[in-house]
């Protein structure tokens, strides 16, 4: 498995790009939900397939995972996984502005995940002079094994997992989710090139 071997400057640059993306995405989300979003600094770490699968299996309650493919120019592409414990699911509909029985739990999770993923990646892309397109978001089958299987299969397509831990607190309702960006090797090199280009400006 490849490693995104970033030196301190490159790591710092990536963190900053993600911070700004997170900040803007949160603002858009907040205005869409008509509320205030408490933002914590997103932590970034590289994870291996194995540890990712372990994290999923470690959770006693079944984890909800929504997967969405993204692709931009210069070969920057991958799969975004949003993983979270769905609690208070009837409040999600309320949060998104729907009546509770207007849409199913699955649809609520998918909608919310899609908003988080696309707004974040759009802002991220803009900062690196890129533009993203997306595939339809999918809710992966609920069981632990199905998710682990999916990841194991996917590991042929990607080599690196960047886990961006997002914690959102929306006024009196808080939910956490982990966003994991699965990126193939070719894209890793492209991202490094972009980071270096940005650093050169300094």
């Amino acid at each position, binding site marked *: 498995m490849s490693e995104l071997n970033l030196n301190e400057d490159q790591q710092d640059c990536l963190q*900053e790009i993600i911070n700004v993306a997170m*900040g803007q995405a949160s603002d858009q989300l907040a205005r869409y939900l008509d509320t205030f979003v408490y933002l914590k600094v997103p932590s970034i770490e590289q994870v291996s397939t194995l540890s990712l699968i372990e994290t999923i299996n470690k959770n006693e309650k079944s984890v909800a995972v929504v997967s969405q493919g993204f692709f931009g120019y210069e070969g920057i592409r991958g799969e975004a996984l949003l993983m979270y414990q769905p609690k208070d699911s009837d409040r999600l509909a309320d949060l998104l502005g729907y009546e509770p029985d207007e849409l199913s739990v699955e649809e609520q999770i998918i909608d919310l995940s899609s908003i988080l993923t696309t707004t974040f990646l759009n802002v991220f892309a803009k900062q690196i002079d890129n533009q993203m397109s997306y595939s339809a978001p999918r809710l992966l089958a609920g069981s632990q094994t199905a998710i682990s299987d999916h990841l194991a299969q996917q590991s042929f397509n990607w080599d690196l997992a960047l886990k961006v831990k997002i914690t959102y607190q929306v006024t009196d309702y808080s939910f956490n989710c982990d966003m994991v960006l699965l990126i193939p090797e070719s894209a890793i090199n492209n991202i490094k090139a972009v980071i270096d280009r940005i650093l050169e400006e300094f």
Partner: protein
Amino acid sequence: MSFSVLVCDDSNMARKQVLRSLPEQLSVNAQLATNGQEAVDLLRSQKFDILFLDLTMPVLDGLGVLQTLKDENITPAIFVISADIQPEMQTKVIELGAKAFLRKPVQLDVLNQNLKSHGFI
């Protein structure tokens, strides 16, 4: 006339971005802080004319710094530069004594404009 400037941000890149965006005609004496606590310590021991402050930082965050400076009546001209751009946040920092709120990534002309309107250029 030379201004003493403190740039407080946990990101090295962000700090560089601020310095690089300062207008050339402005003569500055710059120092850096990597988190809110460092900034407060520096501000207590020296006088600074301008503070550029990030919000999301470890140890002591931007709001914490603003509150501390307000309580201790330390008054550099504070410009908040942050990724968290929600309107509520912007209002809050102004209430706590910041002169202006700038969104990241900081732009040369925006910074220029703000420094001008607060009498530094």
